[in-house]
């Protein structure tokens, strides 16, 4: 059978970066093909070339055996290629129907297109078990359904090949399972699915074939049923990796942080954090699990002093800090914070690394007396931290934005850990970080715990929470659904994350 898509000798450079090196790939019709690789391995570039965002420097693309030129995404759509982006391309205030016809309105009047779309949508929903209310406002739908709208949008435009870029990052385990069922149905109906991900488990669970990319090259093309998680991980990194963190049993000491009935309301007076209480002790890692958007970010902001709780209190080392709203004061008291969003908060991408490496600590006298900021000391500080955390390239004058995700995260961790904090709060320590760096970061967090420091960890990666935490708190819709110890099963925590409370009265 002719393959659905053939990429032949695709080569692409961005200046000095060789993003795709002579990549050849063949994707069979009616199959689910996974593409995995670390950040910067070139998967997104390759798919962007296929979807017409970039033009390849050289190489050829064939769709169903025919060589074609893809100059823009509308070319790609015309050849039956659809893409579901990691960040949805939806107009929030529009209805599902209006979003679906976006770009294919077919005339000055919207009416006929909507009528046509309504019946077409109904057919698609039946065929692929993707029920969505056509008149619902997209912005009001849960994330899982918004993603479904994206898929419907692509199908409505006649996609035969569907590219999904990291589709499960925003989903609960349940929603992810549902998505996989939909993808299975699509395949059974003869559609071709390309799944880009860095999650090995998803590859194993759903794909038929898998291609592994490393540094711009395809290093392996495998049948999923003939491979293993270990083999794939090794192919991705180029060496065998420790997937499970070695750690000794925690020996918790005094309470460092006590969160007491904290509620935080947004401008619409909706409680995003709802009556949350817990404690963190010296020498333990407390993990907060939950699907993103269930109040974890707001809770972290309250503890870090970026916002103040509407009601309730936060006690840090015996002192009430809930009303302070002063991150700088809290840092001086020994509270370090690795924020969830490193690109927008953790560092300033336009600053050089040495300047980002003092963000939040710029007031310290060690960096210059009084009002002065001593450039030599700032650079020396950065050099030391870079060495300590193996940041590459170890160039304090390189712009922060030029480092890879993993190295940016190392710069932030080095900054926060080197302050010798009593409590470290960490949000998404390894989001978008490659496997090698994940291993390193996990080891450093455990080492900090073993020094008797308290760590509060928030992550949407259940594996990460389970392998690092000594106690696990699960949040759903702003509330704590339950607390489990480190041995809890994935299914147990998964249910709590979805808001199902088994042991509730």
């Amino acid at each position, binding site marked *: 059978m002719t393959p659905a898509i053939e990429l032949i000798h695709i080569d692409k*450079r*961005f*200046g*000095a*970066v060789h*993003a795709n090196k002579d990549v050849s790939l063949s994707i069979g019709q009616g199959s689910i093909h996974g593409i995995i690789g670390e950040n*910067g391995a070139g998967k997104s*570039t390759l798919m962007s070339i296929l979807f017409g965002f970039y033009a390849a420097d050289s190489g050829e693309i064939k769709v169903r055996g025919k060589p074609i030129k893809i100059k823009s995404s509308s070319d790609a759509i015309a050849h039956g290629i659809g893409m579901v982006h990691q960040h949805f391309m939806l107009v929030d205030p529009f209805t599902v129907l209006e979003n679906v016809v976006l770009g294919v309105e077919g005339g000055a009047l919207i009416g006929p297109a909507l009528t046509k779309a309504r019946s077409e949508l109904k057919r698609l929903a039946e065929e692929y078990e993707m029920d969505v209310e056509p008149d619902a406002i997209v912005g009001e739908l849960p994330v899982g359904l918004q993603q479904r709208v994206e898929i419907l949008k692509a199908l409505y435009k006649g996609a035969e090949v569907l590219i999904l870029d990291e589709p499960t990052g925003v989903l609960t385990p349940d929603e992810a399972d549902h998505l996989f069922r939909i993808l299975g149905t699509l395949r059974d109906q003869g559609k071709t699915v390309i799944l880009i991900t860095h999650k090995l488990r998803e590859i194993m669970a759903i794909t038929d074939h898998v291609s592994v990319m490393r540094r711009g090259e395809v290093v392996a093309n495998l049948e999923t049923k003939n491979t293993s998680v270990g083999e794939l991980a090794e192919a991705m990194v180029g060496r065998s990796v420790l997937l499970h963190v070695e750690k000794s049993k925690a020996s918790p000491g005094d309470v460092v942080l006590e969160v007491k009935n904290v509620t935080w309301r947004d401008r619409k007076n909706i409680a995003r954090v709802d009556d949350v209480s817990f404690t963190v002790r010296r020498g333990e890692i407390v993990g907060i699990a939950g699907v993103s958007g269930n109040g974890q970010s707001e809770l972290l902001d309250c503890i*870090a*002093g*970026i916002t103040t709780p509407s009601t309730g209190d936060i006690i840090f080392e015996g002192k009430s800090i809930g009303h302070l709203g*002063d*991150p*700088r*004061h*809290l*840092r001086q008291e020994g509270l370090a*914070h690795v*924020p969830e*969003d490193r690109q*927008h*908060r*953790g*560092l*300033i*991408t*336009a*600053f050089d690394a040495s*300047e980002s490496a*003092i*963000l*939040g600590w*710029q*007031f310290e006298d060690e*960096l*210059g007396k009084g*009002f*002065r*900021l*001593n*450039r030599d000391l700032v650079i020396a500080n950065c050099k030391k931290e870079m060495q300590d955390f193996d940041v590459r390239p170890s160039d304090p004058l390189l712009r922060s934005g*030029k480092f890879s995700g993993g190295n940016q995260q190392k710069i932030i961790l080095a900054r926060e850990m080197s302050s010798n904090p009593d409590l470290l709060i960490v949000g998404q320590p390894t989001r978008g970080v490659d496997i090698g760096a994940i291993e390193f970061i996990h080891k450093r967090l455990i080492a900090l715990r073993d020094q008797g420091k308290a760590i509060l960890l928030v992550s949407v990666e259940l594996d990460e929470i389970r392998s690092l935490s000594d106690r696990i708190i699960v949040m759903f819709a702003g509330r704590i659904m339950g607390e489990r110890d480190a041995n809890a099963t994935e299914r147990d925590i998964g249910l709590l994350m979805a808001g199902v409370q088994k042991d509730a009265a």
Partner: protein
Amino acid sequence: MSQRGDLPTWVDVGLIPLLNLLLALAAASVVFLLINENPIECLGIMIKGAVGSLKGWSYLLYYATNFIFTGLCVAVAFHAGLFNIGGEGQAYFAGLGAAIVGLNLEFLPWPIVIPLSIIASVLFGAFWGLVPGYLQAKRGSHIVITTIMFNFIASSLMVYLINYWFRPIGKMAVESREVTGAYILSFREIARQFFDYKYPASPLNLTVFLAFFVAWAVWYFLWRTKLGYEIRAVGLNQDAAVYAGIKPQRIIMIAMAVSGGLAGLVAVNEVLGAQHRLLLEYVQGAGFVGIAVALMGRNHPIGIVLAAMLFGLLYQGGTELSFAKQHINRDMVVVIQGLIILFMGALENAFRPYLTALFFKADD
């Protein structure tokens, strides 16, 4: 992964601006041709008029002094993420400070009066910047709108004050009496008093040294102090700044006050140094030229000094040109300025893709 390769620094700060300048001059040549003038001759007159004599240089530096101050004013606000269009009004209002101190304390010796007047200029300018800064920080009133409006307020207020407060009774011209204590700033006066030398008549005065010093001070402030770091952090990424415990509202007010204070130094050059009196509309658009200067100088003090001198050259050269050629008036200079701003500011990156392609092709 960067979208495009990085060009070597010398191309970035040397070759590209030079190409843009040449392109602007080429476009200006077309305009000269359209009015039947020889562009090479005209450009020659302009350049010779500005840098061909001590007098030319004096005027060039005098104009550049104003532009350095207003360029730095725009740059400091820009680094805090604010677009201060109010340099004109801040500079104008600062004249009030210079005049009040200069006129009322003239019984004191000049080494005391002049520093006090400078401080008063800075404080009055800073105040006129701080008010929009406060409105932005605390009330969310957009800084662009408020600073524009404050230009008009300053303009009307100053007309009133100069006419009813400062104009000596019986005098026809709407201006204050002379600030006699500040004559000493003038180069001509210094040359006459201390060196017995006849310096050509020009408004150049010691403030030009203050301008160079302040340019260095602004660089030091932004890149070598903790407050400067915080200002840049707020300007680049407010979320990250909040995370770092920096209070953006406070920084916005500080940055606007500093910005206004820098514009206020124009009053030192004009009211104290050059005119020795408070005149109507004495800023003459320098506040707006500052925006172009900062844009061209990429908001860096070195770039601003260079851009300010280029604009000083255009002003002085343009004046000479309008003397030399009967049917060229100063509007022609405005056209050339506009072209330079267009090519070096708005079309700054027009050449970049081609140069990048050229460079990386050469690499392969």
